[in-house]
């Protein structure tokens, strides 16, 4: 399948990228070459194959009961065989000042951006 100029412009718009005119043609050629190469995936019959949507190496990990892990605080805690769910408790997270300090334009407690609502 051939990638057109319009395809590149459509994708750039979806990705919020502004491209210079000379970039459009360069990317068109390169994306076309890469996607042609990726086309080899069509050679395989995948009709009975489940997609691998999650990376879960624990699924075939050697099981140890109880599994133990060193937490970030250095404490050794027993971990259950099933994915661990922590208690649903509120923990303090007072990083707002530090986060806002990195913002290009902040008016505490907000990030300031160009006007998006017309009155």
């Amino acid at each position, binding site marked *: 399948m051939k990638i057109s100029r319009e395809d590149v412009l459509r994708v750039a718009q979806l990705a919020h990228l502004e491209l210079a005119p000379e970039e459009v043609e360069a990317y068109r050629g390169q994306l076309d070459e890469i996607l042609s190469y990726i086309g*080899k995936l069509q050679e395989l019959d995948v009709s009975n194959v489940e997609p691998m949507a999650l990376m879960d*190496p624990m699924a075939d990990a050697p099981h140890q009961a109880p599994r133990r892990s060193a937490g970030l605080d250095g404490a050794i805690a027993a971990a259950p065989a099933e994915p661990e769910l922590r208690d649903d408790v509120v923990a303090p997270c007072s990083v707002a000042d530090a986060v806002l300090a990195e913002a290009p334009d902040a008016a505490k407690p907000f990030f300031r951006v160009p006007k998006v609502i017309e009155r």
Partner: protein
Amino acid sequence: MSGAPRWTVASVHEALLAKKTSARELAQEFYAQIEQRNPELNAFLELCPDRAYAQADRVDAIVAQGKPLGRLAGVPVAIKDVISTEGVRTTCGSKILEDYTPPYDATAIERLERAGAVIMGKTNCDEFAMGSSNENSAYGPVRNPIALDRVPGGSSGGSAAAVAAGLSVVALGTDTGGSIRQPGAYCGVPAMMPTYGRVSRYGLIAFASSLDRIGPFATNITDAATVMSVIAGHDSNDSTSASLAVPEYAAEIEKPVAGLRIGMPEDYFGAGLDAEVKDKVQAGITLLESLGCKRVPLKMPHTDYAIATYYVIATAEASSNLARYDGVRYGLRVQGNTLMEMYRKTRERGFGPEVKRRIMLGTYALSSGYYDAYYLRAQKVRSLIARDFAEAFEKVDAIITPTAPTTAFKLGEKTADPLEMYLADIYTVTGSLAGVPGISVPCGKSAAGLPIGMQIFGSHFGEARILQLARAFEKAGGFSI
């Protein structure tokens, strides 16, 4: 390079205990080396002497008090610039984060420092870890310390070069498709990608979240094993980190390897593999056989589809992860009259060509009408590649392949052709997709004197096994940097 023996984790530890040096003197010694070599290598983007000397003084105080030292006490460490360091500028090799200073430390950083490591600075890398040569950094390429006209590999080129040039004893890199192992091979240093979930990704600035991993470069295998024991383990801040006990790897790796079955997949030794690389890796397998390992021929039939699969999945995830760089919360902002214009101008100015290319590729693969043909299909082929590994590990204890098809190429040699650059990862992306651990170990040099790497894959959470093979190989072959 100087003729003095290289520092290792063990020799630093002994020297501190024997009071032959102090952590502060050691940091000074390494900073002097960095000052001398970095102008030509461009391995470091940022140094943090205040942080390093404060940590060194803490270590020296512990020595003075005669208290037990941490496992990495006083060891100078370099950190790839995609890993967050509180108060130390972290750019990801990108203009879009040129002035970004993280408000917190990555878990791996916190664990290194708790073990006494001295963080010297941040290393250069391909922008957002996207590249195989380090030429995609917005701050200029790194040069390979073994041959200055050659690339160090990528994307963790600065970390590999730092260890190879003796500018740090160990370094952290990240590996999404080969970004630790391939530069390790090109620069001739041991380089390890752990199992997905073995090391917390908290504080690692995301490229492709189902593939990204943090791992060490080291002066020798024992040091790599020690670093692994320090940084691995569950972290409540990363729900994908595994709740499995962390072995004392350095103690595991001295076990004999006789009787281990090593798989040699024919699919990794075919067309496109440089003859010298092939010879050295085959000689490496023969060496392991001489130690009592049993060679098992393997077929991993979906290997040839790995690059295509990888460049759909990794770019799709990247297009989503990099949506956060929009000029609102951190990093560069280019003003616009509307919010949308601000987004577009910021991203146009802030991202380099390879990052834009991958964002577009990923956006295309996820876009309406193409999702099934590209993204969904790639996820299915990923299952087939993972199955190749699972079936192989029913027959063998480890899989041995070349790390990369060639030795380090020349700067500028592949920049004009993105697809050709992608093919430098042909032997590493498979393990990335399957989530298994892999290590690149030096296995000799080409006639031109360029390092060659041999890759050892293990089964999920089989780090101890591959480190054990790597250690036996290093010892028997006399491969040290």
